[in-house]
């Protein structure tokens, strides 16, 4: 039965997340944008609340909820849908805060996606960040140089990771490393490294354009010894890259959801300011018969609606055990470019009110850019979508 409305059963979750976003995130949003690198202690209270939400009933709002469910003949709206809905609401409040939510890191999504039951029990309660990017390796993640060499019952990790979101504040880091560089992408595995493990050190925090409430760390691994049982998923090299890449099918809709929430915040603020300026948007009147600002707004909202539904579709597919690599990338590509264009256009429409720090519009226009970059840039998403649609390998379509 084709229906694209959000089921009523998510009402309580959405409402809770929205209340938190409105009462905790928004009031502190500017404060930690200015005080970059300061720990937003207000989040601790809410994180405890969220733990409660996650352990109650079906699904949760946290990154750790993205684990795939068993196949069933009944249509399901489950954990992937609820995490997307939760993220939308929270990012309506503040994206930087969502990324700084204890126990809700992208590393948690990785653990949820590929960990075995034993690992899930051991790491499921940790706050885990994700370390993939290196100084010389960005989108070409198959090319990473960080090594993990087997030594008895341990692996020894060496290398440098950059752009680790929540890298300083998290309890553990999920790090991608290669078991054997000569074997290419198949030899890439992910490891959980807990904080305090000798040889892992946070060496620097970045100063950024946006999401300044979230810490972005450079982490150095020097002969860092990790138990072999911390390797996530299958240690067999033949079961390689696809395993770690599966994380992205689950996290890309999540990042798209962040973009949806942030973009909705900008749309709502802009609609309010335009109304104060005497410009109301009419959904029936032809766009070309309306004020140019209203016509522009209609276009932005239409793009937002498309991005929103693409995101929900990707989550719905995950909940129903349908392969969704294509749809996850479509959602991420669309949401990433929409949020950037949309927030920048909202600043333009609102003039000095939008550009100055009187409102959060300028901040949102800075925060948005990262959403078209991390978890795979716009260009990487286009590449993935193109390869899928055209039936091309990564060797053919580079």
């Amino acid at each position: 039965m084709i229906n694209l409305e959000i089921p009523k059963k998510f009402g309580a979750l959405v409402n809770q997340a929205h209340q938190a976003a409105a009462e905790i995130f928004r009031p502190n949003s500017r404060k930690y944008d200015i005080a970059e690198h300061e720990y937003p202690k207000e989040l601790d209270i809410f994180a405890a609340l969220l733990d409660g939400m996650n352990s109650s009933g079906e699904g949760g709002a946290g990154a750790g909820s993205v684990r795939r469910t068993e196949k069933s003949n009944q249509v399901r709206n489950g954990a992937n849908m609820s995490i997307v809905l939760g993220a939308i609401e929270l990012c309506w409040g503040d994206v930087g805060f969502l990324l700084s939510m204890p126990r809700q890191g992208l590393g948690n999504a990785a653990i949820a996606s590929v960990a075995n039951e034993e690992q899930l029990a051991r790491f499921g309660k940790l706050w885990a960040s994700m370390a993939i990017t290196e100084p010389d390796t960005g989108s070409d993640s198959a090319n990473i140089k960080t090594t993990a060499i087997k030594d008895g019952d341990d692996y020894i990790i060496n290398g440098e990771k950059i752009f680790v979101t929540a890298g300083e504040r998290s309890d553990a880091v999920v790090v991608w490393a290669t078991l054997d560089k000569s074997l290419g992408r198949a030899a890439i595995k992910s490891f959980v490294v807990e904080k305090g493990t000798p040889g892992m050190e946070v060496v620097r925090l970045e100063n950024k354009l946006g999401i300044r409430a979230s810490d972005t760390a450079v982490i150095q691994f020097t002969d860092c010894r990790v138990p072999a049982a911390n390797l996530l998923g299958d240690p067999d090299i033949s079961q390689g890259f696809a395993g770690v890449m599966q994380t992205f099918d689950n996290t890309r809709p999540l990042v798209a959801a962040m973009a949806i929430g942030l973009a909705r915040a900008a749309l709502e603020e802009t609609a309010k300011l335009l109304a104060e300026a005497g410009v109301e948007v009419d959904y029936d009147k032809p766009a070309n018969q309306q004020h140019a600002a209203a016509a522009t707004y209609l276009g932005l909202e239409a793009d937002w609606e498309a991005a929103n539904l693409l995101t929900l579709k990707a989550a719905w597919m995950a909940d129903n055990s349908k392969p969704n690599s294509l749809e996850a990338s479509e959602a991420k590509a669309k949401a990433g470019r929409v949020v950037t264009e949309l927030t920048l256009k909202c600043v333009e429409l609102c003039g000095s009110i939008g550009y100055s720090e009187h409102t959060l519009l300028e901040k949102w226009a800075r925060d948005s850019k990262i959403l078209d970059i991390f978890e795979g840039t716009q260009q990487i998403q286009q590449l993935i979508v193109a390869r899928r649609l055209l039936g091309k390998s990564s060797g053919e379509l580079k």
Partner: protein
Amino acid sequence: MVDRHKRDAMGIALAVLNRIAGARLVRRFGLEKPIERGIFHATRTGFRTLGAATRSFKAVSTIGKPARLPSAPERGLFDLTPDEDQQMIRDTVAEFAAEQLRPAAAEADTACKAPAELLGTAAELGLTVLGVPEDLGGAGSERSTVSGALIAEALAHGDMGLAVACLAPSAVSNALVLWGDGDQQGTYLPAFVGENVPAAALAILEPRPLFDPFELKTVARRTPEGYRLEGVKSLVPRAAEAELFVVAAALDGSPALFIVESTDVQIEAEPAMGLRAAAMGRLVLDNVTVARTALLGGGSKDVYADCVRLSRLGWCALAVGTAQAVLDYVIPYVNERVAFGEPVSHRQSVAFKVADIGIELDGMRLVTYRAASRAEQGLPFAREVGLARKLCADKGMVIGSDGVQLLGGHGFVKEHPVERWYRDLRAVGLMEGAVLL
């Protein structure tokens, strides 16, 4: 600037020649009708004729209360799976579109006319019957705007112009189901569920820049017997052969819908950039009188607004189908076309355009489905239609343009259908009326 042209002797001679040449246009544009009703005078695009001879619509049954389809029940879950009936209808229509519409499209585009047998098959498929309640001889048990969208999409994948021609009668029957009173339904709907479905059309658009369907220049004036209509309607599908119209006209300053039989209207061929297979024409209402019973939906503003929205929704679904046709066509082309020693699809500049078509198309589809599913569940859907229209008009046109671009010079010539889809997709942002889900 507009009137700078002053006609000289040469100009007069050319104008006469043009009239003579125009006589051939009458046949080309399919204005000949079973009963020759005479030609009035030349117009810029052809000739003005009288509307088709109308069968006599008589109240077959007086059912008193109108039969309406109840709203579909509110759904519990977010779901993108068509139900079994929808799947079957969509597959059937898709097969019809692939086997009959697509092969006939180029010729129909040139001829500005859809083949009669093809329209007959479309009627046999039950495109109008599905939306008519069982009480009135149809097959509908509840509102199914989504099914309507799926059908329009599947037809437009074959050809948008032919799809519009096939769907034109259902715009009128759907309007009668949604807003007709018992007498109106009893008089007109039986013909739409019979064997010989009449050509019919919903006429809203008027010929002027920045047309707004809520600010009509076509007016209805009250007379002792009913109403007198005056004005011009533009791009009305199958205008010359249509026996019945639903016409939008301002009554006391407020837009309303009127049922108009074709007898007293005048028709001008109005071939356009695209959608030519829909045999579009202008409807000239020169003091056409209709009875008091011709007013549809009691002249309600809400009824009219819903009519405009459900029509726009139809155009969105058509855009989705044609955009999908573009994507399906360019993928094998860019994979097979070799330049610089490898398929052009190995270049990101080409491949990313294909990716963007895929991404925007899927967005268009979901936004359209959402609006349709809200409409059938009886939820407000004005916002969703407004957004769907904006999205499908903008992205649909980009897809149409990229479809030609990806084929390069080959896209510009008529050996490939992409140039036709380019012309057709331009219509989505400006059309009002003609289809109605």
